[in-house]
């Protein structure tokens, strides 16, 4: 049965249902309901919650728990996620599965606590140092948060790669009806992904197991990085997710993700009532990016232009331009600082070009 869930609490319960048993974090608005929820909930299911002394500690605790084969996660908001980046790079290089949630607030610096999408570059283009990627999801409803979180640990385990889920203050704080799927069996998940073959759980067959991200020999590190990128190619083939909304006859194509995509949908309904054919391409995975879907749309004669809409000064727009590759104009509409555009703003932009 559907229940009214706050975004942050729904994602926490979905993580528990997905088999997450360890949470390490440090408080920051607007995601505090996630650690708050985990602090009592994980003990009911035999897990553990630690409020670390800093974000740096928290992500390294996730590193440790993931190395031991556990389903572990952390969550934070923009400045806190910046602090975690070193650890995320290490986890990616150690090829360990974990889930990181970023409920974005406005930056740069400490910035503000209202909703923003200013961490797109950080989430999709590395964030930490070196050649690596997180698999990045950007849900747009509370139910989609639940569904994506429910699968996130499987995706992370399947590829032994960190998964990042990004939302924003709006999605974290709002309530919507959602349904949490049934509990996954933690032991079965451990077996399904053959963690007994690599986890440093301290009581295996007596042979040494090493989980490390140090590869000091250039040849060894190059071979490893090439293998990592083979993995990303496979992820791109199998895991790319995108929604196309009213794209059949669209002349004006919005490209937006997360909460902003919902504002675009409302604008599209209004535009179509006025006889203007607008549609939306909504990337659900930001990495891998659904470039092929955008390119296909750019090749359609009916499509006149793309308008990328973001709560930032324009970050994803660069990936849209790469995908469109000059076939059609790509424009940008953004608000920043924690301000949110209204559907009417987008209607006006399409009608008047400003």
């Amino acid at each position, binding site marked *: 049965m*559907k*229940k*009214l869930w706050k975004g942050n609490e729904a994602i926490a319960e979905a993580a528990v249902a997905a088999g997450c048993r360890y949470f390490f974090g440090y408080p920051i608005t607007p995601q505090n309901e996630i650690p708050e929820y985990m602090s009592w909930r994980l003990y009911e299911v035999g897990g553990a919650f630690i409020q670390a002394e800093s974000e740096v500690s928290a992500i390294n605790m996730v590193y440790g728990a993931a190395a031991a084969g556990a389903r572990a996660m952390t969550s934070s908001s923009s400045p806190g996620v910046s602090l975690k980046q070193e650890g995320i790079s290490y986890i990616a290089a150690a090829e360990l599965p974990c889930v990181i949630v970023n409920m974005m607030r406005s930056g740069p610096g400490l910035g503000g606590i209202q909703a923003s999408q200013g961490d797109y570059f950080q989430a999709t283009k590395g964030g930490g140092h070196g050649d690596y990627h997180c698999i990045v999801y950007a849900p747009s409803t509370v139910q989609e948060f639940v569904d994506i979180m429910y699968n996130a640990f499987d995706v992370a385990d399947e590829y032994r790669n960190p998964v990042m889920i990004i939302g924003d*203050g709006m999605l974290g704080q*709002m309530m*919507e*009806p959602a349904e949490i799927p049934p509990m996954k069996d933690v032991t079965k998940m451990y077996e399904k992904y053959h963690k007994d073959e690599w986890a440093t759980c301290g009581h295996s067959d007596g042979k040494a197991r090493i989980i490390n991200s140090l590869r000091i020999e250039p040849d060894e590190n190059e071979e490893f990085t090439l293998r990592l990128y083979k993995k990303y190619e496979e992820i791109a083939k199998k895991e790319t997710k995108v929604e196309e909304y009213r794209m059949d006859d669209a002349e004006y194509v919005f490209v937006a993700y997360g*909460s902003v995509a*919902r504002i675009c949908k409302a604008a599209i*309904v209004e535009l179509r009532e006025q006889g203007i054919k607008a549609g939306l391409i909504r990337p659900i995975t930001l990495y891998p990016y659904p470039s092929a879907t955008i390119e296909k749309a750019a090749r359609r004669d009916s499509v006149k232009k793309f308008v990328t809409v973001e709560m930032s000064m324009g970050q994803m727009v660069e990936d849209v331009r790469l995908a469109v590759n000059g076939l059609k104009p790509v424009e940008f509409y953004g608000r920043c600082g924690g301000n949110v555009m209204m559907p009417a703003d987008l209607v006006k932009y399409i009608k008047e070009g400003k």
Partner: protein
Amino acid sequence: MNKIIISGFGGQGVLSLGKFISYSAIEQNLNTSWLPSYGPEMRGGTANCSVIYSHEDIAAPVIDHPDILIVFNEPSLDKFENSVKAGGTIIINSDIVHKKTTRKDVKFFEIPVDTLAAEINKRGANVYMLGVLLPLFGDISEECAIHAVEHVFESKPKVIPSNIECLKAGIEYMKKLLK
């Protein structure tokens, strides 16, 4: 579809009134979204929430032009009255707000909801206001609102009867006003 903004001081139950509406909408098998203001807005200034319910999927949870504005303090009236849709509705808690709207193109109701609720339950102003709203909505039943009240107060069953009484009194009050 109804788009509702509720605004007042933090602590007046502005956010929980919004939740009551959303829970009632779920009981009625409608889609709903509840979006609160959070952070410094809540401290000292006005707290508000945007509530939408609809038969359709809800796209934007943000509201630029509400159908109904419910106001629990004067700054909230100043802040939101111009955004209300033409032909929309503004409801004020006239125990606290002593101003009238300057809008001529909206329905305007002054309801001393604290005084009215206090006759039954001193802390029942929100639920009383929920009752006031039901005849305006027209598409959420009393039964669904009762279920919502029972659900929200699940952990405090003692307060349920007096809150249901407030709800019913609110419905009757508004029905008389609309006659």
